[in-house]
């Protein structure tokens, strides 16, 4: 069902990384072919891709299902906006602080939640995330600005900027040593982070550490009687994935300097689970693929309104068109979440291996013998010998 951690050859890993970089950097080109060739959407691909890559390191490798990762996303966003407000519009400190703080936050929540496993763990992470969300909305309003959301203001202190004599012109936007991160600049910054995140994920996939995480998923009891203490491994994976989420949250705030509590809601946690599973749980590329797929279709579906539907079904006889409109209406526009929920269920019921598994099956079906031998275990033949 999922890709095995392989002691793959250096050359193969390098080519995987290079192909990935090439695909990400040329995104504006191939994006325009599928109607996604604008920075706002591509940015989302990268940000949610990062979120899902990190989430996959926890759920995909160890099998521990967290329902609370949106909380780290929120922390990343808030910390970033505060860095903008207090220190500088420069994104480097903002990103660093966001990753560090979400890591600390994940350490605390992970330490507590990992005292239990299985369903208890899922419930605990869900409870902590919901608690963070409640707090962000209520008593932490001085920090989070409650319902309105936290935003950068003209008269914020920005100590470093002021010391360097940098003044804010126009609307406050993230800045990388003079480059304002809007449009494609924003996308390429996110893309650079995505490449970094993917590189680290690849490293972990190929490391003894990653192999041990899969071993925990595979048979935790055996792990304990083999002399390993699973908890610090799980906690490390939890913190790392929390930091990915924090980074993703930070990038959200950088590309749109506003942080709101709704980012921490359980629906956001559910979304990243779906992205990871849709793409292929425990696989290297699956999570990014899932994230991009969902954001792509969200973009299309949300934009569809009644008018568009009526036009789409205009070729049909009026009565049939009317029925079609009535059927499809709840799934588009505002109803995108309904589509998402249905998709969620369908994937888990019929395709637990996700898109990557689907592709594998297809290639086995059409690719004949060569593809047939590419089962995960056989794949690991490279490198070791």
């Amino acid at each position, binding site marked *: 069902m999922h890709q095995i951690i392989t002691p793959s050859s250096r050359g193969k890993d390098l080519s995987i990384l290079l192909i990935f970089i090439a695909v990400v950097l040329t995104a504006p080109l191939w994006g325009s072919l599928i109607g996604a060739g604008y920075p706002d959407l591509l940015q989302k691909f990268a940000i949610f891709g990062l979120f899902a890559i990190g989430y996959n390191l926890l759920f995909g490798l160890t099998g521990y299902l967290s329902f609370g990762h949106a909380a780290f996303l929120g922390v990343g966003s808030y910390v970033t906006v505060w860095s903008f407000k207090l220190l500088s519009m420069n994104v480097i400190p903002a990103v660093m602080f966001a990753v560090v703080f979400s890591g600390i936050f994940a350490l605390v929540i992970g330490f507590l939640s990992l005292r239990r496993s299985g369903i208890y763990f899922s419930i605990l992470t869900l409870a902590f995330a919901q608690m963070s969300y409640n707090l962000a909305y209520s008593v932490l309003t001085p920090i989070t600005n409650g319902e309105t959301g936290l935003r950068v203001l003209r008269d914020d202190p920005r100590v470093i900027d002021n010391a360097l004599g940098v003044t804010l012109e126009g609307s406050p936007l993230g800045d990388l040593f003079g480059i304002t991160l809007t449009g494609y600049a924003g996308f390429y910054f996110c893309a650079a982070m995505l490449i970094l995140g993917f590189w680290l994920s690849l490293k972990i996939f190929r490391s003894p550490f990653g192999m*041990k995480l899969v071993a925990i998923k595979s*048979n935790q009891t055996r792990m304990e009687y083999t002399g390993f*203490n699973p908890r610090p491994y799980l906690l490390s994976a939890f913190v790392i994935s929390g930091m990915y989420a924090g980074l993703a949250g930070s990038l959200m705030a950088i590309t749109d300097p506003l942080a709101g509590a709704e980012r921490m809601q359980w629906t956001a946690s559910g979304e990243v689970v779906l992205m990871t599973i849709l793409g292929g749980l425990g696989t290297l590329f699956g999570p990014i693929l899932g994230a991009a797929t969902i954001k792509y279709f969200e973009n299309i579906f949300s934009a569809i309104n009644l008018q568009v539907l009526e036009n789409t079904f205009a070729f049909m006889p009026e009565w049939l068109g009317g029925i079609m409109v009535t059927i499809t209406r709840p799934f588009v526009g505002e109803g995108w979440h309904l589509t998402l929920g249905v998709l969620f269920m369908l994937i888990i019921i019929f395709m637990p291996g996700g898109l990557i598994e689907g592709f594998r099956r297809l290639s086995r079906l059409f690719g004949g013998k060569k593809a047939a031998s590419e089962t995960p275990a056989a794949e690991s033949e490279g490198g070791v010998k």
Partner: protein
Amino acid sequence: MSNGDNDFVLSIRGVNKTFGGLQALSDINLNIEKGKVHAIIGPNGAGKSTLLNTCIGLLTPDSGSITFGGKDLTKSMTPHAINQAGISRVFQTPQIFPELSILQNVMIPAFAKRDGAFSFNPLKALREEEGILNEATTLLDDLGMGEGAHHHAGNLSRGNKRRLELAMCLIQHPKLLLLDEPTAGMARHDTNRTIELLKKIKESGMTKVIIEHDMHVVFSLADRISVLAQGAIIAEGTPDEIKGHPKVREAYLGSAEI
């Protein structure tokens, strides 16, 4: 008798364990001599597996002590600490990592032996761990499992899963190896292969405790035998002594299985 503690790898003293109202182990005293193969036999439900479970931290005895390498294992030692102290175990139902390859199954315990209960090295590539890769490959070759070591362990036959689990324990060079029915459910030729393998290990001087139903296996391997019935040790001695022991015959005739 030389009863100096130094000769004993493991000393079980006065161990009791009850489940509900059932006395699973009653006042067990057992010394495992260094470098010897000690077999524990007895009818089903005699408490053999329970005894092994108390030795690896899976169960805590109600009273008594289990001393290993100067430490009392019953004093809140975690399973991984007990393993790190030098005890490895083969379970009755094979416990392996079905989602990993055969080779990786053997590498994992090697890492535990080398790096301890926790090490954080996410940036080091697996392929750079040449020492452990070679060690695991060599061991698998020795056990005749070298071919197809890159296949999923989950697809192995039950007998091969047992052998794999044995390999996972052997790579740790444990001071004490606990084997819970290593040949149960195996076909005859697999059993013989396993006996050969265990004999080979015996020469290495590794101390072993083995639970076994198959008397053929027991008498061809054991240096010493303890007989367990209804939670108590009813006889102990060399294989020859045990063969002729009246109590043993009685205990075995009382149960359906021999």
